[in-house]
């Protein structure tokens, strides 16, 4: 069936912004190579303007996505897993080439990434019960605390784990109703750009996830300083860049999730971090083991707690014993 002489059809990798697939407005591309330096594709090299366009798209999508029912968001996230399952071969190929992994290790990473969507799909309608609840105030009031999404979150995806790491930082952000502007791994952006094609066919509304490729610092700087971005995940930044971005983020008091190099490791997760796994070596270079059970901290990092009071009134002093 396969024709050894047939010339393959290359894919033009494009950004994913507002549900569409634009090229960079700057017209720039950069060469993406595999781990041995062989050319794979030209990826768009996003500019400051692309970053701003993505923020506008993410803001526009926030009202609808955060207002959707948790059940609905859960089904949409599960749909992403379904779509990925059918395109597994493509992602295994891209991850293997991008990260220099054997086919079996790449397949393990892709499987784990698909399972991660499933994990977070199940969280959408449970996090509210875990992170919120009724508070027994000393007075005649009903008092309820509810977690709500922070808003537009800039996400610097991990540099090494181009797909499992990527999914591990995107899914928890959008599961709770945030919208995301994602900066893909600079050297290995292809799995991220392909993920955009999956999201576009998974009922994820346009603008909920926006994916940019290019030089991390160039794209991240305007996002960290942007007044309409509410939070930033610095996972993909090295220590020096993370510090610089955290300073810029203070200008409108963005919520900052620091990269693992500076963030304290939760003590209850420290033990499991050493467990061996197919992508261990890769995870370690990101100083985060993406194959480990993710816990809830990436969900809660981008949640606000709203507490609502209302008087209960009183029906009478005596009450009822039955």
């Amino acid at each position: 069936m396969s024709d050894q002489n047939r010339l393959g059809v290359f894919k033009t990798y494009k950004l994913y912004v507002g549900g569409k697939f634009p090229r960079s407005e700057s017209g720039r591309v950069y060469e993406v190579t595999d781990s041995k330096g062989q050319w794979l594709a030209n990826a768009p090299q996003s500019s400051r303007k692309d970053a701003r366009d993505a923020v506008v798209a993410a803001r526009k999508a926030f009202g609808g996505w955060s207002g959707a029912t948790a059940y609905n968001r859960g089904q949409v996230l599960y749909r992403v897993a379904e779509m990925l399952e059918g395109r597994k071969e493509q992602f295994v190929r891209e991850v293997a080439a991008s990260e220099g992994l054997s086919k079996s290790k790449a397949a393990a990473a892709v499987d784990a990434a698909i399972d991660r969507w499933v994990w977070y799909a199940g969280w959408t309608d449970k996090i509210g019960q875990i992170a919120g609840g009724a508070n027994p105030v000393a007075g005649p009031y009903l008092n309820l605390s509810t977690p709500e999404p922070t808003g537009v979150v800039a996400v610097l995806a991990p540099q090494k784990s181009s797909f499992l790491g990527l999914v591990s930082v995107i899914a928890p952000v959008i599961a709770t109703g945030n919208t995301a502007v994602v900066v893909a791994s600079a050297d290995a952006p292809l799995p991220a750009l392909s993920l955009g094609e999956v999201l576009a066919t998974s009922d994820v509304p346009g603008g909920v996830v926006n994916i940019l490729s290019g030089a991390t610092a160039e794209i991240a700087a305007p996002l960290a300083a942007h007044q309409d971005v509410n939070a930033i995940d610095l996972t993909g930044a090295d220590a020096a860049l993370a510090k610089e971005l955290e300073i810029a983020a203070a200008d409108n008091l963005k919520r900052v999730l620091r990269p693992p190099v500076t963030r304290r490791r939760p003590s209850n997760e420290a033990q499991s971090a050493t467990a061996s796994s197919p992508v261990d070596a890769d995870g370690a270079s990101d100083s985060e083991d993406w194959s480990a059970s993710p816990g809830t901290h990436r969900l809660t990092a981008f949640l606000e707690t709203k507490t609502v009071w209302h008087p209960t009134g009183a029906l009478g002093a005596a009450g009822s014993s039955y």
Partner: protein
Amino acid sequence: MASAFEYAPAPESRSVVDIAPSYGLFIDGEFTEAADGKVFKTVSPSSEEVLSEVAQAGAADVDRAVKAARKAFEKWSALPGSERAKYLFRIARIIQERSRELAVLETLDNGKPIKETRDADLPLVAAHFFYYAGWADKLDHAGYGANPRPLGVAGQVIPWNFPLLMLAWKIAPALATGNTVVLKPAETTPLSALFFADICRQAGLPKGVVNILTGYGDAGEALVTHPDVNKVAFTGSTAVGKAIARSVAGTDKKVTLELGGKGANIVFDDAPIDQAVEGIVTGIFFNQGQVCCAGSRLLVQESVQDEVLDALKRRLSTLRLGDPLDKNTDIGAINSAEQLARITSLVETGEAEGAERWSAPCELPSSGYWFAPTLFTNVTQAHTVARDEIFGPVLSVLSFRTPDEAVAKANNSQYGLSAGIWTEKGSRILAVADKLRAGVVWANTFNKFDPTSPFGGYKESGFGREGGRHGLEAYLDV
């Protein structure tokens, strides 16, 4: 205004509190002078009388206090939670025993009415310690995993508007989770924190677990930037909060910030008007409006605007402004000359920009810092008085026609700390509360607080929550 019955003076006795002529810094369980010997005076804002002279901490004192807290941390964090709990229960009980003394002290140093310190501040202070005391041996059940660990030394900087209550919000959860603290009260209200140091002594709290540094902003800066501080907790202005957020960049310090607000208090046409008016008054004139979660923007539905404003002005005309120690006083003194100047300047800006000013007809005492309850009408969203936090007894009134417009206007702010909703329609409360981007929403009530209830802001009102189970996270390594 003529009234059938005049009020006789009803002052609370000052004799219940004994203020020493001078106080030192409380470091490692001892009162000590500042390294450079500097002192400053604290005055009663209602009379400008000097109450006491307190030590002014500098960087060397901060270092000494952090070292003491670090040394105390090892044993304090290793104590069984049940033992830490009992220390905190002791503190709660001593505060209850000494609450009248502390209420009078707070009123003298802060200028707020005794009615408030007696009925709001002090009961909430004791309740906060009592609440977090109970958490100390139950942290495994708090939802942060098994055996969550404390962070270490907490550097805490608090404001002058609720001096002892803000101290309680900071210290109670920090100690319950096994941290040790260095706390800096505001320079205009140092006394209740120093009395709290004495309560720690009475409770037998180990030395160095709580350290109190009185001083100015430079001491606060030295504290939050100290390399051996693991946790920074700040309540105060958004500008300082941003500076702190910058200063901790690139470190592993955990930060919570409780900053400014410009809360919208939304009154719909079906609201019980008399109750709403009381809520508006509580919202912006409680503690002279010097409250970060104050309902400083009144959003009133156009069809009831005149009715609400008439009733509000009538009510404001009956508020009693004067001696904060008088049990009938509703409006006390502004905390400092500096704050009074800020309020005055923003009100002048409001007038200059074209908003229409109305102030309650009341006589202001000749000494001290005072500002009459004031409201602005003809306010647009672009006006400074509709955007900037005034932190004083000044209400800006805007109107709206539809619930969507009310929500859009309420959310049109850099802040997101509090909001109020007044309507008899339950589904409207829930729909509007859902859309408001604010950390605390009071429906048919306002300015209610409780130790079990998480408090904190969205957007530039800061991050992290204080109070409740949520408040533990800020002091745990999770």
